[in-house]
């Protein structure tokens, strides 16, 4: 049936590009799409960094895992600025040697969670939360004033606490970042299996990692399809309904895939054993790295005790 006559007039008008307001009701869809896309770009970034010919990229993943985890552990036990300073320099040194740009380290590590923690910690700088000696006085003590009769100042203890917290979280994350950026995921799981982590668990980790990309793709398509088909304002109720259904649909598809994949695995001779094409063997450089860092860690450990 011909419908030319019944085309609404607004459809015949030329398109108008209206600026998208931040309070747009479809904002949540855009955010979802952004978050999911970030997974893909993160993977691309990690694989690019892991393929660089840097120092830590050449080291056996087991050694790297043990050494960097020990550094994270000692960072968490550290209670002095001196020790944290040394650990900070070590983290930067390893990043530099592994051809990771320092500004990247700053941008992706220090400016994210540590900065957020720092902002959340601002109240702790003041004597109202952590008492101590006056460092910077904002309001002098005045017993007649109804608020802050003892004065408001940045206390030395407060500054110390916030500083330690900021450095500790930043340095821990830097070591974790250096580890994840220089080790491809399959090498990390391979290293874990050689460290006697149960095979079943490694299998779950390995499969999850792959499924994440598969389901991400699915979720991305669903969100984009919805985003492109939506015009105007939709009620919150309608949007929530869409999300609930999208999540459930994802589960149903995932479940269907799981049974299909397991049957396919069985048919191809799956015997619950992990087989990797790459064999890991410790070389001289790995031993040197391990012994070297062990010495550093012992010195640092003595420093924490002292």
């Amino acid at each position, binding site marked *: 049936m011909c419908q030319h006559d019944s085309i609404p007039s607004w459809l015949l008008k030329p398109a108008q590009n209206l600026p998208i307001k*931040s*309070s*747009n*009701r479809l*904002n*949540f*869809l855009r955010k979802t799409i952004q*978050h999911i896309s970030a*997974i893909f770009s993160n993977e691309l970034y990690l694989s690019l960094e892991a393929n660089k010919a840097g120092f830590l990229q050449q080291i056996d993943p087991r050694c790297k895992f043990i050494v960097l985890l020990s550094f994270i*552990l000692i*960072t*968490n*036990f550290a209670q002095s600025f001196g020790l944290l300073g040394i650990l900070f320099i070590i983290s930067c040194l390893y990043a530099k040697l592994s051809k990771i740009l320092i500004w990247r380290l700053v941008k992706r590590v220090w400016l*994210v*969670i540590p900065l957020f923690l720092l902002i959340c910690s601002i109240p*702790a700088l003041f004597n109202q*939360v952590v*008492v*101590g000696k006056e460092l910077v006085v904002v309001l002098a003590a005045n017993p007649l004033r109804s608020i802050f009769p003892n004065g408001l100042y940045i206390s*030395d*203890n407060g500054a*110390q*606490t*916030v500083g330690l*917290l900021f450095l500790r*979280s*930043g340095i*821990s*994350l830097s070591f*974790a*970042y250096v*580890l*994840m950026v220089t080790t491809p*995921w399959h090498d990390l799981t391979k290293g874990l299996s050689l460290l006697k982590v149960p095979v*079943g*668990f490694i*299998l*779950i*980790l*390995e*499969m*999850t990692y792959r*499924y*994440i990309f598969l*389901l*991400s793709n699915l*979720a991305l398509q669903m969100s984009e399809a919805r985003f492109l088909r939506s015009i105007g304002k939709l009620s919150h109720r309608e949007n*929530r309904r869409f*999300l*609930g*259904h*999208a*999540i*459930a649909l994802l*589960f*149903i598809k*995932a*479940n269907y895939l*799981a049974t299909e994949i*397991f049957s396919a695995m069985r048919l191809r001779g799956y015997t619950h054993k992990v087989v990797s094409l790459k064999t890991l063997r410790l070389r001289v450089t790995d031993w040197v790295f391990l012994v070297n860092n062990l010495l550093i860690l012992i010195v640092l450990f003595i420093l924490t005790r002292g």
Partner: protein
Amino acid sequence: MHLPDGYLSPETTLPALAVMLVVWYISFKKIQLIHNQALIPSIALCAAFSFILMMFNIPVVGGSSAHAVGAVLVAILVGPWAAVLAVSTTLIIQAFLFGDGGILAIGVNCLNMAVIMPFSGYAIYRLISGKATLGSKRNSVAVFVAAYIGINLAGLAAGIEMGIQPLFFKAANGAPLYGFYSLAVAVPAMLFTHSLFAGPLEGVISVLALGYVVKFAPHLVVREAQRNIDNLNSQGWLAKNKAVLAVFIGAIILSPLGLLTSGTAYGEWAPQEVKQLIGYIPAGMAQHADKWHALMPDYSLPKFGAGFMSQSMGYVLSALVGILVISALILLSAKLTRRLENRN
């Protein structure tokens, strides 16, 4: 709720990691016993599912958006033990690949979001849902309440973990070494955001998602529900009520936390405290105050002295006695009601 490294002391994160190793081992054994290896791809997909679920932004009031955790939903769909492994895997991958949540803090984060949340949520779901059919009104209410309380309990646990830091870990000069917000700040802050925003979101999304699965792929949930019912029928009383007992025992163990708070619960003031608060003791209260002498005054046993350990012991014992008395009263009233109904 993803706690980073450096905010909690290793004395908190390492024991939590040790506890998680045991929990992972048990859940692995359970999964192998119940479902054999066939569940491994399903768990991996559930983990990936829970990962993506955290990526979904949900519109909240005022044009902003937040994300759900979905641990209770996963527990209802595949069982709580599988949920432990699925959500833990997600948290591990987030820590190692995205720097979301600390590496040493994996234990603490898993304890909150992969154990406390799915188990408490699942127990509440079973308790409220009973034998109601899937998708019924009672079942939906059960899913909502379970998801709401589950995420709030996880938030509460995170608040407690943060709040105990300044109590136990201080430098020689008294400055806190790790987190500095006390229980009185951390717990209300976490509960405020979770009860007002994250909780309702989690509840609504769980109800909608489960409703959709029940409508379009009922076999997925029915199979699980049937298996659970079969398991329940073949188990003894202890096994049937394990989840409820665990919540009670947890509450008893956590009860000494009450000692750490400085004030009295709202409305539970002793006459002297009322005088401090409002300046005088209401006449009625003074008249009746001496008529009741508690068996265990101030939740302690007179013989035990006043140290923290003995006070804690007293607290635990008082909690135990209290729960026994309350349970006895409830059971008694239920029995009476039933007898009356039978007579009619």
